[in-house]
């Protein structure tokens, strides 16, 4: 009885919430919705990451779908206000819940779901936790959300064509996560960096701090006009947009190595490393110690 009531309420809520997301056209044919700098709540529908879409002559590619089925549906509603073309591709920049949980909203048009080759395995290992914590954070707003199942996997690079508009996909070695994928739109020189780029909101290390610094080096060589960061403004100048994040990660790596050389324990290191960066980032206290833990347990294996 309780279960039935829950489903019924959820269906009502979802039906009542087909309002379209606010999107900004950051370059011709490229639209981005800006996530808020907060944790997922029933009110924000998990909409804490930047998500967007690119329109070609024949079809549309969605790049990240948001933190819940409802956010995905609101993104689809935004697309339908702008273009009737089919959504042929859903690209997942990595496996974090705020980027992938809207995939289900696009199932009706049977898009090719694309991701880094490592994504299925890494997501499978985390899916149970992601669903449980999103349910407890969002409650009714999360109903109906499912784990995506990408079938087109990118090991190194791949290209897709939206009709006179080619997108170039690049898979990275472990950096923000072990499944980071960027999307480059040749037509406008726009790069969707996913969470390889955090602006304003503190980066979170769920892969490798050294790998991430290397990824930034590699990204800098991309000749782009602008970038869409995974978190931050909808569009930012390239490559200056990378500067703050690179400095933060460099500080974390350098100070962690120093702590290790001084024989500081993990606990001591988490209390001191990176503190000079506090004024520069939103949600600093929620993630910095965790980042230091990740850096410490990675770097303690260096000779």
């Amino acid at each position: 009885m309780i279960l039935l009531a829950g489903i019924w309420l959820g269906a009502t809520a979802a039906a009542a919430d087909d309002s379209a997301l606010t999107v900004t056209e950051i370059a011709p044919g490229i639209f981005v919705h800006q996530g808020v700098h907060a944790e997922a709540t029933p009110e924000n529908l998990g909409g804490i990451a930047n998500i967007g879409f690119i329109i070609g002559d024949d079809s549309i590619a969605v790049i990240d779908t948001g933190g819940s089925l409802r956010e995905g549906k609101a993104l689809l509603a935004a697309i339908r206000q702008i273009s009737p073309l089919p959504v042929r591709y859903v690209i997942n920049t990595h496996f974090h819940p705020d980027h992938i949980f809207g995939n289900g909203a696009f199932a009706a048009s049977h898009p090719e779901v694309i991701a880094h080759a490592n994504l299925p395995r890494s997501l499978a290992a985390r899916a149970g936790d992601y669903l449980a914590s999103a349910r407890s954070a969002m409650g009714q707003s999360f109903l109906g959300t499912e784990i995506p199942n990408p079938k087109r996997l990118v090991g190194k690079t791949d290209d897709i064509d939206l009709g006179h508009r080619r997108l170039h996909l690049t898979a990275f070695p472990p950096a923000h996560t072990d499944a980071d994928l960027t999307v480059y739109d040749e037509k406008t020189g726009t790069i969707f960096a996913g969470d390889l780029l955090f602006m304003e909101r503190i980066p979170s290390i769920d892969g490798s701090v050294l790998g991430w610094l290397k990824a930034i080096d590699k990204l800098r060589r991309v000749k782009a006009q602008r970038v869409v960061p995974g978190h931050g403004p909808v569009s930012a100048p390239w490559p200056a947009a990378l500067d703050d994040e690179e400095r933060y990660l460099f500080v974390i790596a350098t100070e962690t190595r120093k702590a290790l050389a001084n024989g500081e324990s993990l606990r001591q290191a988490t209390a001191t490393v990176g503190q000079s960066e506090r004024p520069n980032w939103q949600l600093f206290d929620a993630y910095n110690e965790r980042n230091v833990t990740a850096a410490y347990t990675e770097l303690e294996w260096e000779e």
Partner: protein
Amino acid sequence: MRLSRTACIGQALSFLLLLVILAVAAPRTAAADEASDDPWPDLQTAIFADRQIADGSSFMHLEAPARAADAAVVPLEIKFDPAQMPGLTVKTITLVIDKNPAPVAAVFHLAAVMPDPSIGTRIRVNEYTNIHAVAEMTDGKLYMAKVFVKAAGGCSAPAVKTPAEAVAHLGEMKLKLPPDATAGQARRAQLMIRHPNFSGMQMDQVTRYYIPAKFIEAIDITYDGKPLMSVEGNISLSENPFIEFSLKPDQAGEMSVTARDSDGAVFKKAWPVPASS
């Protein structure tokens, strides 16, 4: 949380029996609900039967962050003050994370030559929980200390950020000794073993990925062939198990470590230990 707990429990075979015992003991009255949230009384009975456990807080305590930044890697120290425990020598320490699916995280067996029984390690914490350390002395008496830790999701959290790296370096070990030890002083050694300590996971209906539990279950540490410490571990120890312990070598010698995982894979390494200068 239920889904992930089930996944962990399903794989923590060595502790399944213990959990079955607890489940049988579970039925309670509504009035007892508040108190029944504390699993310790049942755990104590399951692990130590009816043996008395005295309060050891005058000479032993647990140090852990009150709120852990990363539930999969919670640093924990079991500290003893030898000056406050004359005549008592620690033989074994049982570390219990009350609300983890595999509550007995580790059992440390200490040789008498160990100068200070204090142990440091890193654990996974599945939800807000008390953590108990129970020390058995050479005279057979039990003493305990506890600490409360706020952390959630560590057991079922993915064991590895970079699975390819974990496979490539499986079983590698590293020993850290402070370089500035003075002669006759106890030294703190840190042993690290590269191992994902996978807690295992259920078949995922969508992706069909299945990762069986695979964890370090035994570590034997010797110095010049004589036992120093042996450790029984399980999935409640963090990825890349970490053990800090003390050592007071009278002379230069060789520290040797043998670790065995739940698949029966055996990893060995030895290090020369210079005499304290």
